[in-house]
């Protein structure tokens, strides 16, 4: 007979309280707002799923969602290959390695709104180096006037800010590959590309899963940089989801729709991350599972 001591539950009580206070209750508050119409602190009406329906039908929001998805996948498409390439070209040993690591990591230390400000000035055609140079080259560049320019500027800014993170992760992954692999490859007469394709890339899979997820989630939540740089404009070319949400919740004080939208936003990130994670993991395990029947 097993004796069950139910008092053990008391041991996890502090954690339950902390998590409830910091995560579950705030989330429930959002759920609460999302199903009510709050007219004034005293008057509220239960509206069921009405806000959800309204939000889903909102054209502006759908526009922001597609922009967001486009932006996040562009970020991944640029930052992941660029990060790998950077990591491959970084020195492995000696003082050069330390120096390069520090230089590469600098952009990661800069706060988001400072990054926005830096690029806001950098891209100005009157006093900014980038803007003025482009103008001198005869390119009609304006992140405040042209929506493609604005969108590209936000993308380049994100690449500038976050590619080093991918590079550092890949660099760590590369350093973890034992020398014997390179030696064996050299004895086998493998080309540089074969070494990358058959040794480095497979060994980087673990860190790449992390890098892709981090960059996906982070870029999907991007707010500060476009807010500082363009304020979401011109028009709404750089109005991404979180910006749209903030306009709704804080600007117009539409708490109901904003709360409903927050939940949908949360679910989208969860779903896409889940799909990405499982897909990347399957790419690896399919290779392993293939061994049992082959």
């Amino acid at each position, binding site marked *: 007979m097993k004796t069950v001591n139910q008092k053990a539950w008391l041991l996890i009580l502090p954690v339950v309280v902390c998590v409830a206070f910091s995560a579950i209750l705030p989330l429930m508050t959002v759920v609460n707002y999302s199903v009510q119409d709050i007219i004034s602190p005293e008057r509220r009406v239960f509206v069921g799923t009405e806000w959800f329906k309204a939000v889903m039908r909102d054209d502006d929001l759908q526009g922001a969602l597609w922009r967001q998805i486009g932006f996040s996948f562009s970020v991944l498409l640029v930052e992941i290959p660029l990060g790998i390439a950077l990591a491959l070209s970084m020195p492995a040993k000696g003082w050069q390695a330390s120096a390069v690591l520090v230089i590469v990591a600098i952009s990661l230390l800069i706060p988001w709104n400072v990054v926005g400000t830096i690029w806001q000035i950098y891209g100005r055609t009157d006093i900014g180096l980038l803007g003025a140079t482009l103008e001198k080259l005869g390119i009609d560049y304006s992140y405040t006037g042209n929506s493609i320019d604005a969108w590209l500027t936000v993308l380049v800014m994100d690449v500038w800010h976050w590619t080093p993170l991918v590079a550092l992760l890949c660099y760590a992954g590369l350093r973890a590959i*034992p020398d*014997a*692999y390179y*030696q*064996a490859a*050299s*004895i*086998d*007469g*493998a*080309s540089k590309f*074969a070494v990358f394709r*058959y*040794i480095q890339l*497979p*060994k980087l899979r673990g860190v790449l899963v992390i890098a892709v997820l981090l960059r996906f989630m982070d870029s999907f939540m991007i707010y500060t940089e476009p807010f500082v740089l363009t304020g979401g404009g011109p028009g709404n070319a750089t109005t991404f989801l979180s910006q749209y949400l903030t306009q709704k919740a804080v600007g117009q004080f539409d708490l109901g729709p904003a709360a409903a939208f927050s939940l949908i936003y949360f679910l989208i990130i969860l779903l896409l991350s889940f799909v990405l994670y499982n897909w990347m993991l399957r790419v690896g395990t399919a*290779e*392993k*599972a*293939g*061994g*049992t029947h*082959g």
Partner: protein
Amino acid sequence: MARIELDLAHAYKPAPRSDDDYALLPLKMDFEDGGAYALLGPSGCGKTTLLNAISGLIKPSQGSVKFDGKDVTALTPQQRNIAQVFQFPVIYDTMTVAENLAFPLKNRRVPAERIKQRVGQIAEMLELSGQLGQRAAGLAADAKQKISLGRGLVREDVKAVLFDEPLTVIDPHLKWQLRRKLKQIHHELKLTLVYVTHDQVEALTFADQVVVMERGRTVQVGSADELFERPTHTFVGHFIGSPGMNFLKARWNGRGIEVAGHTLSTQTSPALLAAAADFTLGVRPEYVSLVESGDPTALPVEVTQLQDVGTYKLLTARIGNEILRVRLDPHLAGPERGAQVWLKVTGAHTCYYGADQRLLADANPALAARVNA
């Protein structure tokens, strides 16, 4: 297949000054074509450095490496056309076993038909035929190590196969299987094999010739029998054998060998021992035996310990400051702890070492003749 001639030294630091700066002190060594060699020594003795100098993974800081008389010092491992198996199995995770085996041939642009044939042959030899279609990543360590070896063997013109402690990560019960496989391959393909290990059993069972190394030097090159019977250096006596050779401080007192105040008779030429004056007497625990008290070739000792190791009993005894270890028949009762017994130490198998720790030349002509024969 190739005869390998080494005449080199290597230091990882630039501008080495003292002997300690060298990973490999200057050495000259030849590996015969088709021979099986082992480089044996404790960690950090330079055996892996020597192996990498042969394979071309490092370029010796001085001297040269020759394959069949051709200087290959400046060539890469690929150009030298050697195969190397590392301590940890190196396989290409995303490839199948067959693709792994085919990889070196593919890189050398061998026709597909020929690749298929070679991979089939090698897989057959290594007993991997059933797993050719599997992903290599999912296999056990011993199968992976066989793949590493197979990637070397698929090249027909491979000059030598080098092993860097290849059995370290293999389960003990699979080690002997793999070792037997290696011997079999050596017999079938007549390749030059060089095998680095710190395990004397591995070295002695695998190789025709064992190179014993210590601190960047080669101490002795010989067959298992030579290393056991006639260690030319006290290090070899100590390192080979389990337990290692007994060493007793001795001197020639005009009448015989004096050990701990006791005089022993010997068949060894008195002139040689007299010339050395102070020397070290070395005798393997296997060749020390219990004898009648008063035997002129024996020492009176006090038993300090008797351990039953299973296949033999290990007796530890003391005389003065000297310790003696003896292997005894496990079926005999053996003396009690604290008992006084006589142990025979001088005889045909006893070796004598000078102040430089080296064997005194031809201390026993009869045995020297037997070993050289």
